[in-house]
């Protein structure tokens, strides 16, 4: 199956523009545009140019090592991998139901991760685009530019992120490479001093998160023509859903809706994910393309992440975030919102939900408890799903009699959104680039569409001098005509 603008006829006759790698996106991604002599867009692709080899990295390891080592897959959301692997390995040690303390400590860790990741994304990766405009001077379009022009916004972003990281540090035991979550439970709870340390700031954090939702909403209301249409395309949604249809970012069953909001499937147990989701390989990208089996690869692709979750659930179990969810739905007019920039608004609703959830957990005496572990009958297969900041994260393992991982399958959030991101940049290319001279500001429109999904394309390699932004123009004969590069 190929989509409109996915594969051009006679590509050898077209001019090639490469954005390599995509800036402010985690990992190694590249966008290529093929243009004809009139600058008409003929092909648009988001490639993943690095083979990640996650499964090979994990197979053969003792199962108890996995929750710690998978954190090294990603320097941006290591806690999500830590918890998804722990949940899968719970089944290996026979822990069918965690102790209340263990589950709540894990939830505290997870919602700290949601908060810090969403704060980084909104305040530091996207606010430069949103507050300055997509065509603004490139030197201004970064977080330092935001800090200069909007010091209070930047300061709050830093402090919200820091608070989330402190919640992680205190529950995981370390700032990075945490060991707090282990198969069958956790290895520490909070002391009263640690609880009070977080409690003293949480009300301020909740207030700031609520302000951030309002900022995101104001951006939509200020320029609805842009925000309601940028990178728009219709698709299915998917996420985990908790009890009674409520948003639950830590656990639940899979639910999918179609583009008009009707339920496609619901109540799917995590262990049954392969009955509903299939992955397609395409020769031009290392990242697979998942789709719903029942609909096939042509119609069955979908979005995950904040825009999906906020519209997939029936309610949010914290009052301020739920009120904001209802305002968002009202704004959308009773039909699902599909615009790429809707991710930012919903991401802030989730950040508020994370702050409220942390507040509630800090008032729960179970987080101070000492009953940390559960075990039971030994198992040989485990499924761990979690709603990571960027969307549904699936860990699936088989463990042999020698306690070694014999099979590993990971579907990370960004992989679920692969087709959606490609569709978004094709829409933007048609709308903004088609038939025009390519400028840096226009190319940034492509990156804005990708960044809305907050993709995490690889893992944490951030050596100095690495991660340059290069834009290459290559003529139909393959000759490099012009190259721009800025080092990160």
């Amino acid at each position, binding site marked *: 199956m190929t989509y409109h603008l996915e594969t051009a006829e006679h590509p050898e006759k077209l001019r090639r523009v490469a954005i390599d790698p995509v800036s*402010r996106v985690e990992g190694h991604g590249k966008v290529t545009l093929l243009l004809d002599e009139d600058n008409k867009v003929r092909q648009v692709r988001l490639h993943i140019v690095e083979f990640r080899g996650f499964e090979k990295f994990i197979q053969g390891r003792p199962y108890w090592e996995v929750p710690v080592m998978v954190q*090294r897959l990603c320097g941006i959301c290591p806690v999500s991998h830590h918890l998804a692997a722990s949940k899968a390995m719970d089944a290996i040690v026979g822990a069918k139901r965690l102790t209340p303390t263990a589950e709540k400590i894990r939830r505290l860790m997870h919602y700290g991760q949601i908060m810090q990741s969403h704060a980084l994304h909104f305040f530091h990766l996207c606010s430069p685009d949103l507050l300055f405009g997509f065509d603004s001077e490139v030197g201004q379009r970064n977080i*330092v530019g935001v800090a200069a022009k909007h010091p209070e916004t930047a300061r709050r972003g*830093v402090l919200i992120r820091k608070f989330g990281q402190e919640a992680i540090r205190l529950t995981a035991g370390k*700032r990075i490479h945490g060991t707090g979550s282990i198969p069958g439970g956790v290895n520490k709870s909070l002391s009263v001093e640690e609880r009070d340390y977080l409690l003293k700031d949480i009300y301020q954090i909740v207030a700031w998160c609520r302000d951030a939702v309002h900022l995101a909403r104001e951006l939509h209301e200020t320029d609805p023509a842009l925000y309601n249409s940028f990178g728009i395309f219709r698709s299915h949604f998917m996420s985990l859903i908790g009890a009674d249809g409520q948003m639950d970012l830590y656990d639940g069953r899979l639910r999918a809706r179609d583009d008009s909001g009707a339920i496609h499937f619901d109540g799917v147990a995590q262990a049954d994910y392969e009955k509903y989701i299939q992955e397609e390989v395409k020769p031009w990208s290392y990242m697979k393309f998942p789709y719903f089996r029942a609909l096939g690869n042509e119609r069955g692709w979908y979005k995950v992440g904040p825009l999906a979750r906020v519209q997939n659930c029936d309610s949010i179990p914290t009052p301020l975030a739920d009120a904001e969810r209802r305002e968002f739905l009202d704004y959308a007019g009773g039909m699902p919102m599909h615009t790429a920039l809707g991710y930012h608004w919903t991401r802030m609703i989730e950040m508020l939900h994370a702050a409220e959830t942390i507040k509630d957990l800090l008032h729960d005496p179970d987080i101070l408890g000492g009953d940390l572990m559960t075990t039971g009958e030994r198992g040989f297969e485990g499924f761990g799903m979690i709603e990571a900041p960027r969307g549904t994260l699936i860990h699936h393992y088989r463990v042999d009699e020698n306690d070694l991982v014999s099979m590993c399958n990971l579907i990370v959030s960004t992989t679920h959104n692969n087709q959606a991101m490609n569709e978004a940049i094709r829409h933007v290319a048609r709308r903004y680039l088609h038939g025009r001279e390519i400028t840096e500001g226009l190319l940034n429109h492509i990156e804005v569409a990708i960044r809305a999904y907050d993709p995490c394309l690889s893992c944490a390699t*951030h050596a*100095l001098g690495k991660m340059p932004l290069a834009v290459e123009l290559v003529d139909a004969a393959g000759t490099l005509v012009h190259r721009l590069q800025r080092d*990160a």
Partner: protein
Amino acid sequence: MSASVAPFVVLACGNPSRGDDALGPLLLARLDGWLRAEGVAGHFELIEDFQFQVEHALDLQGRAAALFIDAGEGTPAPFTLRPAQPDDALGHGTHAIPPAAVLAVYRRVVGGEPPPTSVLCVRGEHFALGEGLSPAAAAHLEAAWPRLQTFCHDLLRAMVREL
């Protein structure tokens, strides 16, 4: 959770499972052992992370000096050790930001001038998942290590002179 901080902070970033990206964490671990053996560990706070980010500006508060350690790709071999200045005109950002941008964030978010800061950049060659340190990077690490020791000694001597 303590109000007092060590006078010096060393921040190293890298992923220990990404080949030569481990240079920063490896140097930090070696530094930790050496500072303890020298009996001066209390004067340094050592912070490891996957990448430098905006919140590290908060780790600079109240310090007499700071050092960032990272692997470099395409940077001078075997290493460079240079002072860093706040720079808020560094082009595009990424999920990580360079030390100079952390210092610029300090100015904006914390206020005032950040402490004197240096960057130790050790050249790496290969950064693939699951790889160990390359022989070239291992040699660069050995070359950088005595310079790092000297740098820390100099910080301590300067602190003693000011007492």
